[in-house]
């Protein structure tokens, strides 16, 4: 359009050019922002942190018949049974004398701390040293290990019975780690005399 010449006006300076209207480069970004934040919110809200952890467990090598299990000094035998209940007895099993006591996962802390006082006190002593920076973390770990190996430290024998759930087993192993019991074993061999006591105790559950 601008090039159309009107005759005889060629030398008459710059003629009026019709300028394209300069529209602003600003576009309304509000919908885009809306969308972006919608997506953002969606992704943040739907993301669940899926973080499974693992619990390492070493099972005792199945006993060969000629190998007698070592004499246990300071043992607690815990039977896991139905309704998340725990029945336990201290020391070795003596027919007619041993009685099962009943507890559950909430009270287990008391039972474990009561029966493991010496070891816990020692470990707490080291913990104070650690806090006061008298010993290093590695030293603390090795000292703790040392205490857990001592004879006075509690040795827990865990025997899930046929009514126990897998969760109970995990929970109790977890409790062992929490209470710093270094020596524990999960066994499935319930002796007949233990089973007899267990059956009687289970009737009242």
């Amino acid at each position: 359009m601008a090039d159309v010449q009107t005759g005889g006006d060629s030398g008459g300076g710059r003629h009026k050019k019709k300028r394209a209207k300069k529209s602003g480069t600003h576009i309304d970004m509000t919908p885009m922002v809306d969308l972006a934040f919608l997506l953002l919110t969606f992704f943040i809200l739907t993301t669940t942190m899926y973080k499974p952890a693992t619990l390492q467990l070493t099972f005792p090598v199945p006993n060969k018949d000629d190998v007698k299990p070592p004499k246990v000094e300071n043992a607690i035998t815990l039977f896991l049974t139905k309704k998340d209940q725990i029945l336990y007895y201290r020391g070795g099993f003596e027919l007619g004398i041993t009685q099962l006591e009943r507890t559950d996962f909430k009270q287990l802390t008391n039972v474990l701390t009561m029966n493991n006082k010496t070891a816990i006190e020692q470990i707490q002593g080291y913990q104070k040293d650690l806090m006061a920076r008298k010993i290093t973390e590695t030293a603390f770990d090795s000292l703790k290990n040392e205490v857990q190996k001592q004879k006075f430290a509690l040795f827990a024998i865990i025997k899930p019975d046929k009514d126990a759930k897998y969760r109970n087993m995990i929970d109790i192993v977890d409790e062992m780690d929490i209470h710093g019991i270094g020596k524990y074993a999960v066994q499935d061999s319930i002796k007949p005399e233990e089973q007899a006591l267990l059956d009687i105790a289970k009737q009242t559950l």
Partner: protein
Amino acid sequence: MPKIKMPRSSPALDMTPMVDLAFLLVTFFMLTAQFRPEDAAAVDTPSSMSTSPIPLDGLMTITVDSTGRIFWDLTEKPVRIAVLEKMAERYSLTLDPEQKERFASLTAIGVPMNKLNTFLSLKNAGERKEFDRDNTGIPTDSLDNQLQWWIYETNTLFYNEIGKKVLVALKADGNTPYTRVNEVIKTFQGPIIQINRFKMITDLEESRL
């Protein structure tokens, strides 16, 4: 008094940096999101205070769901195929390459050997799920302990191909009766496999999240 005229400022503000940021975050979340592969069995693992993370590779997972069905899973694809071939040989099955490829891309497998052929012929995931639902998992009975052979073949083949021992993880539902889990542990400890150390997969305790 002359009226003071306030300069009328436009209410439009430059949103470009905000949009940049928003899209950056969107892109980040979209790219980093990992979709959890659908499991053959819904397993609600118990929680523990343990924080040691689960290894991402070289892991054989034995899953036990709440009804006691057993599944086998391995992370390494080439070894999966090798294991499948060995198992097929052991139970004299003939599988075509397509079935093997499908087996490699799946996750947990929980069908008895005599149904494996049918299972691997199923093309879509829905059908396989349906098939899984009617199944009893990998048998562990003493006459024909198929789980034992799955683990045995995985152990040996993994060691031969990757050059290190496969990590064993047990993933069981919290409500599984312990006796059932114990059967699996007994299989682990059996004379042929002899695994006495393994990991148990748990969730983080709520308070630790």
